């Protein structure tokens, strides 16, 4: 591809050009064509937006456009294109996995089964580290497997964790982030379904989960009702989802499940919302002996307990541990978190030797 397109010294060296009015109309016609053909995708994108006026407006705009375009059969080129590129595979996969969840003994009835709510665990219980009960012999052929699953936060430390974990030939780790996902919007990405599929297909020995960054939003129940964020009913529904994910990940007795809490955030409002979510994660983890909640606030705050982009490392050198967005972890922040996670896994006496070689 070459770029020498803007070298002509004059605006219209060859006299080619059209009146601005006609260009406007033709450009708008082109945009209308693109919008009509893509209207199904645009409507789907609008429906995935967080519940808000903006979402309502977008859905209200795209719904009639999509209906008209579908009626006029204008959406078929896109549908055919998606089919040829295998773009509809995800939806098929998710629906199949939902059936699997229904058949999973731990989940009982269906994917949104209501789990029993117990009293919050004591502080001592929170400090427990889940451990494997039996001690299989790990080898390169039969490695200790770890899966890291979550939203974009995982993207910024998952691969670092994999590299650090796989310094032992006896360990195989996989990181699978899904950007802009969470537990609030299974219509965008169905994490319970995905976790169930991972457990069924790979039966990992440890699972690390990190959600929340996109979850401080209104959520829609199975009966289509929107619940306003942080209301009592929202909390009840969100707790169910946390519980479901935790129980799916724990599965058979003995699997290590580490739930990583949200680190402090630069924006006060966002930070406050993440604190509220962390309370829910901590609380639900406390009810399950197989799940360990990891608090990141102490790791990523300065001496005053506040968010800090730069923090001293073990040798006292200031290191940037956060990205400029004030949310995600930097490379070094990812290393810190990965080291913390590995330390946590090593607390299980059967596993400490994995990295001893």
């Amino acid at each position, binding site marked *: 591809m070459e770029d020498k397109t*803007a070298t002509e010294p004059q605006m219209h060296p060859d006299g080619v050009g059209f009146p601005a009015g006609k260009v406007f109309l*033709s450009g708008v016609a*082109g945009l209308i064509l693109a919008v009509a053909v893509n209207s199904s995708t645009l409507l789907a994108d609008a429906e995935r937006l967080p519940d808000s006026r903006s979402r309502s407006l977008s859905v209200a705009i795209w719904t009639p456009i999509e209906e008209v375009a579908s009626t006029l059969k204008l959406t078929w080129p896109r549908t055919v*294109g998606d089919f040829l590129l295998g773009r509809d595979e995800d939806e098929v996969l998710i629906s199949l996995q939902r059936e699997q969840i229904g058949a999973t003994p731990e989940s009982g009835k269906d994917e949104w089964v209501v789990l029993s709510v117990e009293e919050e665990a004591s502080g001592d219980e929170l400090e427990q580290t889940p451990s494997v009960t039996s001690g299989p012999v790990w080898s390169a052929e039969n490695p200790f497997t770890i899966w890291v699953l979550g939203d974009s936060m995982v993207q910024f430390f998952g*691969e670092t964790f*994999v*590299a650090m974990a796989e310094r032992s030939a006896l360990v195989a780790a996989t990181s699978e982030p899904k950007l802009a996902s969470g537990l609030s919007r299974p219509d965008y990405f169905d994490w319970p379904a995905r976790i169930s599929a991972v457990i069924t297909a790979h039966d990992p020995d440890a699972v690390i989960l990190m959600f929340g960054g996109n979850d401080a939003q209104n959520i829609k129940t199975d009966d289509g009702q929107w619940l306003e964020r942080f209301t009592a009913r929202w909390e009840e529904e969100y707790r169910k989802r946390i519980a479901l994910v935790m129980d799916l990940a724990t599965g058979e007795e003995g699997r290590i499940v580490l739930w990583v809490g949200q680190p402090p955030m630069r924006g006060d409002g966002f930070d406050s919302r993440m604190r509220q979510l962390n309370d829910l994660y901590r609380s639900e983890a406390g009810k399950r002996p197989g799940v360990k909640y990891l608090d990141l606030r102490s790791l990523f705050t300065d001496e005053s307990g506040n968010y800090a982009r730069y923090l001293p490392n073990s040798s006292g050198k200031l290191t940037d541990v956060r990205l*400029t967005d004030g949310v995600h972890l930097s490379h070094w922040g990812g290393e810190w978190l990965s080291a913390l996670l590995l330390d946590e896994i090593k607390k299980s006496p059967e596993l400490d030797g994995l990295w001893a070689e």
Partner: protein
Amino acid sequence: MLFPTLAFGLFFVVVFLLNWLTRPHPLIWKTVMLGASLFFYGWWNWRFVFLLLWAITSNWMAGSQIAKQLHAGSKQLARNWMRTAIVGDLVLLGVFKYYDFFAVELSNLFGGKTAIPLLELTLPVGISFFTFQAMSYVIDLHRGVIKPMPMLDFAVYLSFFPQLVAGPIVRAAEMAPQIRNQPDPRRVASGEAFHLILRGLFKKVVISSWLASSIVDDVFSNPESHSSQDVLVGVYGYAIQIYADFSGYTDIAIGVALLLGFRFPTNFDRPYSALSLREFWKRWHITLSSWLRDYLYIPLGGNRGRQADTYRNLLLTMILGGLWHGSTWNFVIWGLIHGLALAVERMLPNRQTHPVVRWFITFHIVCFAWVFFRADSLSSALDVFRAIGSSPSSVELTSAFAVLLLAAMLMAQFFPYSKSEDVKQWLSKQRVLTQGLAFGFGLVLIDLFGPEGVAPFIYFQF
């Protein structure tokens, strides 16, 4: 507001209409364009609009004083005003972009204690671009290359949204006449503009995004866990990714400006076909390299002094060029590699080396430097080289399609008139409605082939 979004599409439809409706009325047109550009910039963070307004006001006032003093024959006062403006721009850039970097390094120098407080400010989008444009304005005024612009003209120039956040760095001498003179509304180069926008979107949304998500991000986030072949392809992939990303943005910016009646300078000219580093910098980010040449390298003495001075000037220019991209040691090293390579090229006798060998060496020096540019840290960059040097193992990321794509993108650099040019010629000769519909169809195809969600342009962070 990102170019490849529906929000920008709607914004531009309105701006296009207002632009041509108000163009016969200069005052209204300039006010409308300034408002549109501020709206575009404020879409990210409205607070930074005040920063942009400050840059406009302070540089215009300094520029007026420079012209006034030159007119009065006070060269020293004019120089002082120029220096004041440059210092002001550098302070602006320094506070937002470099302060924390130097504060941290200073602190670490003294045992990790924070000697001076950290600011932890958000980097305003495009600050490096508009401060460089502002500096070129006051310097050119002092040199007598241009005349002072009216306040509103200068505001439109510095804030002009197509090039505001990621260039090209357009100089006042190029923009002032285009702002002053009304283009012919009967001859809008729609065919060329639609072609540029589609080509830019294709490079960004399809090629750059695919390379990033399929190979490059994986390789650079964890080089040690990939085979040497995968890592090598990841490095080549990044060379193509950053070219597709940045030249794609430039194509869109030039196309958008063209629809508004403006012609921007060329910013990329098949850089990977270069047979030397010197040639590379005449083809890559041309508006930045010419800026560095005219406002840094030549004032430092250029190649007019002793050989040693020339090497020093090359190194300084390229290191500062590296720092312009970001406040990390990786960017400094990236600049240093280019500076050293340029100096070595000058040192070596002009032997008749085969062009293929010269190309091979040039391309691989560029790729070597890109590793530092892309890696999160110095140690990550070294991990990439270690992984390339490790014993070959199973290939996981590299597919036949990826290799073919990289080869095709690289080979296209050697054809001055590619298929893309044919498309432009064909599109320009069509009826206007055909152009519009072809544009719409192109958008559908790009959206179809592009991944879900498109990352911001790489050069936005600079």
